[in-house]
């Protein structure tokens, strides 16, 4: 594992939120270091409110940091903006806990799934159509679902569609924020199987945020445990 190239890194990250019009400061992350290697499944565990999701948002550049920096393939991206970030934004994709909240309720799912391509100025070409077909087959998504609206599909189906939308951009890293916690055990098992297959086929790296100890032990190569904004443990989790 040590020989593998570092793909995404966070160094000395601190994040403070101001609450109540600046009366109270809440330190959400305190000098956090995290490294995701190429082709690795890194588990991030901890109780609610320990800063897991804040760290994920900082890694995605959705939140600014108060100190420290984020590195994408060894290059600091904390101060970059606009077109300089395009490769990073395409390379790192995010699957949220409630994917239904990331789909526009007024758009049919098919439109939402291909929408990110236009963000990267890609046309709806034959190549992309074929790629979508392959992904639909890999993820066991019926084409009929693309004609429906988000409220007309089940939790497992919308989760797979969110994964399909992310994979259409051919990312190198997936950040999965409690992506399976809303699913029942049978759909969860199906989802984990799909993620494992995709990781093998496309050599993806996952940052797998979860509070399910058993699942993390089963699925992840390495685990980081957080508590109160700090890293408590790193390594292979036993008990």
């Amino acid at each position, binding site marked *: 594992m040590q020989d593998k190239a570092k793909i995404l890194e966070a160094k000395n990250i601190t994040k403070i939120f101001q609450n109540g019009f600046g009366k109270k400061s809440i330190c959400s992350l305190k000098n956090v270091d995290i490294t995701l290697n190429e082709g690795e499944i890194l588990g991030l565990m901890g109780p*609610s409110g320990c800063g897991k999701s804040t760290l994920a948002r900082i890694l995605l550049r959705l939140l600014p940091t108060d100190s420290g920096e984020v590195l994408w393939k060894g290059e600091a991206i904390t101060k970059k903006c606009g077109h300089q970030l395009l490769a990073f934004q395409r390379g790192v994709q995010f699957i949220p806990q*409630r994917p239904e909240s990331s789909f526009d309720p007024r758009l049919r799912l098919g439109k939402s799934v291909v929408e990110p391509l236009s963000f990267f100025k890609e046309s709806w070409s034959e190549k992309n159509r074929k790629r979508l077909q392959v992904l639909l087959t890999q993820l066991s998504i019926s084409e009929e679902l693309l004609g429906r609206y988000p409220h007309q599909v*089940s*939790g497992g189906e919308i989760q797979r569609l969110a994964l399909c939308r992310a994979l259409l951009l051919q990312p190198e890293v997936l950040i999965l924020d409690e992506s399976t916690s809303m699913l029942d*055990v*049978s*759909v969860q098992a199906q989802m984990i199987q799909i993620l494992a297959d995709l990781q093998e086929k496309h050599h993806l790296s996952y940052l797998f945020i979860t509070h399910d100890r058993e*699942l993390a032990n089963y699925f992840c190569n390495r685990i980081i445990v957080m508590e109160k904004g700090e890293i408590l443990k790193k390594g292979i989790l036993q008990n």
Partner: protein
Amino acid sequence: MVGKSLFIEELSVDFMISTGKVRAVDGVSVVFESGKITGLIGESGCGKSVLGMAILDLLPAYATLNGKIDWGEQSLNEYSIRKRKLLGREIGLIPQSPSESLNPSRKVKAHLNEALRPLGLKRQERYKKAEKLLRDFGFNEPKRILKAYPHELSGGMQQRVLCAIGTACSPEWIIADEPTKGLDSELCKQVQQTLQSLRIQGIKSMLVITHDLQLAEDLCDTIAVMYGGQIVEMGDVLHHPLHPYTKAFLDALPKNGLHPISQINKGVEQYSKGCCFAARCLKSRPRCFQEKPPYKGDKMHWVRCFDAG
């Protein structure tokens, strides 16, 4: 045995949507006994919540309900003012997703005030009762909580507030719909303790709809397994599973190797003549697609499968 049991006979619920009719509950016949905590488990979309909402008459207007639901000797089928008064007072609901069930623009006090209104208490008495309820559910500073908005409370605290609302009128029965969905293990434990404390407060009968098998195991006296709109097995299903679906469902747990259930679900309508699990069952025979399996076993543990038992 005290209290009234819930008797459900040949209950079906259909939804009319733009693409046609979808059957969410398919001919369910079951007795949820009073004095027991019954768990209702199964995968997403199997009809668990629809069954719970059908009992409470909280289905949307485009749903069609057929069959019988009796609470003791009283029928819950037809709409009546008497039945409306019964819901909330006699059968309470603890809904899923606390963050979505509480009105973000109203304080906890307003929520509890509304829930206590059927008791006909004066305003001051309602306030005192609300304080007592919050204290019963582990809040040390109920006055502060009453003045808080839902976003000022954590997920576990919101869940406890919902429990207080659901039990405000001291109902005989409680239907808890996915009380731990999306909560971390610490909060799950907290919710489980809250539900257990309901027993101490006199609510003995509960139907807990969940896909959290740990919660079902720790909390419930008996568990019903639902698949494709039907209850396929009921009893001590976690330790002695008999139905192929129950076995496959348990195999999908991380501790059992995370094996996904075979094949894609082909829906209830397609195989409504036979067993609802036949399309995905590894042991299914032609008979499974043609005939409904009989009930096998006794009152304590029964299963609907030709091969089981």
